[in-house]
């Protein structure tokens, strides 16, 4: 289909900047994008008849990584070696 309506996974690497130019960066656009992303994630991994640990574990792993990133400046002080 047309470029702006394809999901991100179907957009080829070369077309990526055109795709970014087509999506709207207004608050409603961003909100809509976030809602769509969350909705597609839920529909794929959570709202199924037989989900496994995958649905929540990916969210928890993402949370772990995000919180590590947020605390990185503090954790950098506890390095074992000064020069790598």
């Amino acid at each position: 289909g047309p470029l702006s309506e394809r999901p991100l996974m179907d957009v080829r690497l070369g077309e990526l900047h055109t795709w970014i130019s087509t999506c709207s960066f207004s608050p409603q656009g961003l909100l809509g994008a976030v809602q769509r992303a969350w909705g597609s994630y839920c529909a794929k991994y959570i709202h199924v008849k037989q989900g496994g640990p995958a649905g929540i574990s990916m969210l928890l792993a993402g949370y772990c990584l995000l919180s590590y990133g947020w605390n990185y400046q503090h954790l950098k002080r506890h390095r074992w070696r000064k020069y790598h």
Partner: protein
Amino acid sequence: MLARLVLRAAPAALRALPPPVAVGVLHATRPLHTTQQSLAPVPPLPEKGGEVRHGLIPEEFFQFLYPKTGVTGPYMLGTGLLLYFLSKEIYVINHETVAAACILTVIIYGVKKFGPDVAAFADKLNEEKVAAAEAMKNEAIQTLQTAIEEEKKEQWRAEGCGLLFDAKRNNVAMLLETNYRERLLTVYNEVKKRLDYQVAMQNLKRQKEQDHMIQWVEKNVIQSITPQQQKESIAKCILDLKALSKSAHAAV
């Protein structure tokens, strides 16, 4: 395509958000029935979720790297990244690493051991809910079916009303006829009674006149019989008797 997105996104998104937010969002994003697709009947949930390997990494990632790097590509990538983070101490090993390792061990052990049982229990709960809903639906359908049959029977009965009314009409006509005939009979009887009375009166009158006349004639006749005539008649009778007895003697 857009409709399918809406179909996937809207109910899932609304289900995911907490209820008050969902209600607010509902007013903003609810699709009106402008397209031919409507939200009901809701399509059934897919059986299995997206494939995920080791519980963390979606299968699409492995498929994405397969053409270029084969089967071991993502694992080599993972190992390389891990070693890089460790050696450059982008990931710092501290007490939290140990805690994370212990927690992960316990969690993985728990999931591997009790996962299937919990899944079976949840499935059973779902089955019960679905069975209850199905039973309600079937019962409702059954009730409506019986209602339809009852309605049909009532309609058939209502047709019989026509026959009933015809019979009643016949009855009423017959009653009227009977009444009319009874009254005719009464009239006839009354008229006959009056005429009989007249006839009886005339007969009586004639009878009385006759009797009276006979009596008068007899009385006059008896009065007119003088004693002289009486003696002459008695003597004639005796002579006749003698003649008769003579003829009787001769016969013997």
